[in-house]
């Protein structure tokens, strides 16, 4: 943890080793771009929203990038020292994949666990498609359960989807985006004390983040090669999965999508995770974002 004015920024993020839009932070460190911006960045990989965020509430880290529902629920806790400052990865890149030959009608869809983003989506899909659901766990567990016939399809994201398509003939049974529209996958929250002391650091962070996003969009092939070893997949799979990511330019951009935020709030209310819709104008403090990406909420 850091206190007072500093050049250090500790980031705690979920999935830096499995999700490319998180792994770009590591790329930023490796390429020295944060250093150039005068930031000494330190990256934690938190396993799941609970840990990722707790590390920030305890002051171990200054910034958390974690699953949408966790961040929202944590920030709404009484006496919370978390402040939501931005959305992260604003396309709906969740899929339900299955071995070939499965049908959506009467399907049982696996999700990770209660209270998670996947539960949110699965609840939405239940209403739209008349499916049922079952808590299973990680992407790996879901794919295993799908193959074993315990569920019809399991949740997955890129590049896992591509990898299983390539290696094991997985097929996308449901693409959540088609059914439910976009939501931000993650939200960025900062420790309020840190933010008060070091507003410049957070601003600098977002500048570098935009640079990284742009790098992915403009140099997709190079990005695939750089990210592949971090994801432990082959460069081909990584390249393909970036290609398969819907609206890459929107996905890898900080430009706030008000509609996606609204959609998230609606889904959470429908899933019973919230009792009333989120007032984003109050909940999300956009002051640290570059002016050109802010939105009126």
């Amino acid at each position, binding site marked *: 943890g850091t206190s007072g004015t500093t050049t250090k920024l500790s980031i705690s993020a979920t999935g830096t080793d499995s999700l490319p839009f998180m792994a770009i932070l590591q790329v930023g460190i490796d390429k020295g771009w944060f250093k150039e911006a005068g930031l000494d960045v330190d990256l934690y990989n938190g396993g799941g929203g609970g840990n*990722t965020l707790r590390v920030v509430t305890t002051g171990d880290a200054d910034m958390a990038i974690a699953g949408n529902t966790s961040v929202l629920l944590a920030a709404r806790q009484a006496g919370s020292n978390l402040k939501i400052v931005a959305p992260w990865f604003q396309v709906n890149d969740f899929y339900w994949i299955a071995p070939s030959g499965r049908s959506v009608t009467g399907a049982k869809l696996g999700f990770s666990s209660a209270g998670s983003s996947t539960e949110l989506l699965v609840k939405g899909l239940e209403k739209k498609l008349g499916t049922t659901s079952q808590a299973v766990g990680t992407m790996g567990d879901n794919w295993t359960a799908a193959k074993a016939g315990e569920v019809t399809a399991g949740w997955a994201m890129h590049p896992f989807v591509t990898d299983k398509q390539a290696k094991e003939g997985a097929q996308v049974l449901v693409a959540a985006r088609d059914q439910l529209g976009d939501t931000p996958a993650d939200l960025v929250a900062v420790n309020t004390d840190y933010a008060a002391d070091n507003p410049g650091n957070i601003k600098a962070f977002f500048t570098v983040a935009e640079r990284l996003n742009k790098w992915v969009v403009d140099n997709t092939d190079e990005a695939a090669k750089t990210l592949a070893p971090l994801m432990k997949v082959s460069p081909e799979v990584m390249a393909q999965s970036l290609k398969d990511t819907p609206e890459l330019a929107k996905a890898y951009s900080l430009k706030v999508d008000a509609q996606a935020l609204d959609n998230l709030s609606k889904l959470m209310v429908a899933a019973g995770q919230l009792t009333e819709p989120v007032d984003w104008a109050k909940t999300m403090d956009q002051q640290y974002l570059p002016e050109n990406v802010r939105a009126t909420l």
Partner: protein
Amino acid sequence: MTTLTKLRQSQFVGAVVLALLASVIWQISSGLSFVIPSPAATAEAFVQNFADPRYLSDMGETAQAVAQAFVIGTLLGGAIGVLLGLSAAARTWLEPLLIAFNGVPKIVLYPVLLPIFSLSGSKIVMGVLFALFPVLINVAVGVRSIPPVYWKLGRTVQAGKWQLFVHILLPAIRLPLLTGVRLAISLAVVGVVLAEFFATRFGLGRVVLQAYSHGEYAQMVSTILLLLLVAFTVSVLLWRLERRVR
């Protein structure tokens, strides 16, 4: 005794045969279900891991945490065990709580530990909590079952407190202490790795979890195998020592 019967009765040979048998069963079952990676694929992943500098640094990270957890856990467990063994008052006050605490699934305490000990500390503390009890219990029981005549002997030769500790207590509990230490090493590994599942920056727990959540079972099993192999080797060596000590 002929060499053949000796060979047949040797524990080592038996254990190797059992390991081979297990590999054969593993090979066969890997053909039956996709969740079980084949021994060959696992071995390949095992070897490749060692060529990966990140894997090696993860290994170092875990080893360091395990070593710290083991040392702290053994010292702490030993100290409390000696206290409990020697003092009836300490037993009255602490024993029931310690027994109850031993029965608690430590993993549910992780949410309590994380905020207090922070990220790198809480995995060591988790390892300590796992390693603590076998040492504590073994030492307490060991101290209590030291034949009273040893203490009487110590008193008649007017041995000082430190002399009693070094020349009577420590050697007298050497066997239960070794047993406790052996279990402590294994459990320190489990504790640290479990903690690494939840939150960490480096460590084999993270590697396993990454493989696990991606369904890369060969990679996952190869790391489990490494953990197993290390714990197994240390444990068996200590266990042999345990049986050789007079």
